[in-house]
């Protein structure tokens, strides 16, 4: 039903013939996929296949070796720097470790993007920061420094900062890695709520199976050996219909598609 509505216009995010490389070493070749508005796309793949690298390309941290990413039909890397920076202002990025600025309190961490791009007063910014912190379950931690809270809390504060400006696209780099199952579930709920509430498009890099099935509308699978994208479909469909041995093993924790010795 959703697909019928969207077919009129081109999807807001399109990755076309993207090649990724470090130095001269190709990591992934010829990646093509698109993400619809308000969709949750999961980037899957085994360790070291370039999931996080793909995210770094999409958020503007690493220039592709070839190809481009189109946001609302505008080229992201082949356009001008100003254009790219304007686009990046509508992104929220949550990093693996939280990546909070260590010299600032949590409230200041969230306020910094607000300070740069909004005309809010100090008092209003403080209110916004408190609201975002309470959304991730950290109400009352406004004046703590990142070094004073636990790793899981840093991750959640990182999410609060990523959603400070109510971005159009939110990127999550392994949000549930290293979290206990309950925090992990809470995080999944939060991601769904952000999508439903803010209408944000969400791209998640993860290999947490429970999360993948709980949140993903669509997924792509990167393969380190073939060095390209080997599947692009909702994970449940992949589980039922994919004939690729690697994908089956991944989605079933190795129970299917492999001969047990």
């Amino acid at each position, binding site marked *: 039903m959703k697909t019928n509505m969207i077919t009129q216009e081109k999807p807001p995010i399109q990755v076309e013939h993207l090649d990724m490389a470090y130095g001269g070493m190709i990591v992934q070749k010829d990646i093509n996929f698109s993400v619809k508005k308000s969709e949750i796309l999961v980037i899957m793949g085994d360790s070291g296949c370039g999931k996080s690298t793909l995210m*770094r390309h999409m*958020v*503007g*941290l690493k220039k592709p070796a070839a190809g481009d990413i189109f946001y609302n039909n505008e080229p992201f890397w082949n356009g001008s720097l100003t254009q790219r*920076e304007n686009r*990046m*202002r509508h*992104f929220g*990025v949550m*990093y*693996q*470790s939280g*990546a*909070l*600025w*260590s*010299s600032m309190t949590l409230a200041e961490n969230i306020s*910094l*993007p607000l300070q*740069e791009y909004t005309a809010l007063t100090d008092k209003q910014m403080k209110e916004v920061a408190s609201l975002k912190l309470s959304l991730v379950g950290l109400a009352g931690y406004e004046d703590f420094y990142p070094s004073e809270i636990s790793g899981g809390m840093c991750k959640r504060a990182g999410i609060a*900062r990523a959603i400070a400006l109510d971005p159009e696209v939110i990127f999550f780099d392994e949000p549930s890695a290293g979290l206990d199952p309950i925090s992990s579930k809470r995080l999944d709920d939060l991601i769904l709520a952000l999508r439903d509430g803010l209408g944000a498009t969400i791209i998640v890099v993860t290999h947490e199976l429970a999360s993948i099935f709980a949140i993903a509308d669509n997924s792509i699978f990167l393969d380190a050996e073939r060095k390209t994208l080997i599947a692009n479909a909702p994970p449940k469909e992949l589980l039922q219909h994919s004939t690729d041995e690697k994908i089956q093993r991944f989605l079933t924790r190795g129970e299917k598609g492999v001969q047990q*010795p």
Partner: protein
Amino acid sequence: MNSSRWQIDFVQQSPGLLTIVMAGQWCAADNLPSPELLIEKIRNLPDLKKITFDTEKISHWDSGLLVFIVMLNKIGQKKSFDVNLNGLSKNMRSLLTLANAVPERKHAPPAPTPSLLVSVGHSTKQFYFEFEKMMVFIGAITFSLSHFFRGKVKFLWRDLFYFIQDCSVTSLPIVLIISFLMGLILAFIGAIQLQAFGAGIYVANLVAIGMTREMSPLMIAIIMTGRTGASYAAQLGSMQVNEEIDALQTTVISPIDFLVLPRIIALVLMIPLLCLYGDFVGILGGMIISKAFLHISAAAYIHQTTTAISLIDVAVGVVKSILFGLLVAIAGCYQGLNCGRSSDAVGRATTKAVVTGILYVIVADAIFEIILNILKI
């Protein structure tokens, strides 16, 4: 049945079948037998087809036993006889199954060591690449500075004040000790030579000119490289490791504006003050030595000092120190921002910041002296 030590026995069931009977304690720490034992044993058994195990009498075992069996297995593969694991206990077998589940990775052969010509070419290319990156960095700082002067400050004033404090007040004790001792050393060297000519009073000239023009700016630059330059590199490097710099970039806040500029401004503002302070303390050190060893009165020493140096000498030192401060801050920030993504890389960035910082300072000092000589200042 000895449970304290491993025992191994080979029982020949038939020409093609050998049973290895194991007993006792089979732990890695017990100096286990080498699998060579088996090779020795089978040398005179050309018809061997199969090996089985009897492990019922093993009292205690750990991965030492597993390693032994894996190695026997490899020998079996090489000599093409069958190693049957059915005689092992269930726990042993399940661990061995896990160990064999994923085939060993075939490593690509290591790249051959490049010839001298290739590595020289490679280093030259690398040097050029580094130089280009450094120029881009300096260009970015210049841009950022123009932002600053047009009033579009992006950094936190709090950060700037913190760095100013860090490279001024908190640096005073070390600058005091080093500059005092430098003045003292200059006076000592001068005293011995000049006294031979009966020109002891000229110690004041030596110390004053030596400190203001050369030693104070140079020594303070070196202190600040080790203190501030290194800490800049370590701070920015650990922010790089923690993805904090990426986070700034994706928030479209330039790390140069936000992190590098306040650090450079703080050092460039404060280092001339430290230099003047060093001048003063150094001259004081020289005066104390003159009083103690040459019996020159403080008044005479001060009078000689004021005739020896002019404002130009002091100004030369101050201008130098500003230049040095800029170089030290740039070296520290550059190495920090270009740090790799491991804690090891932070250490390397810090070392590089100090080494390149001192190198830049000394080279700049030499160039500065040559220019001053040409201009006859």
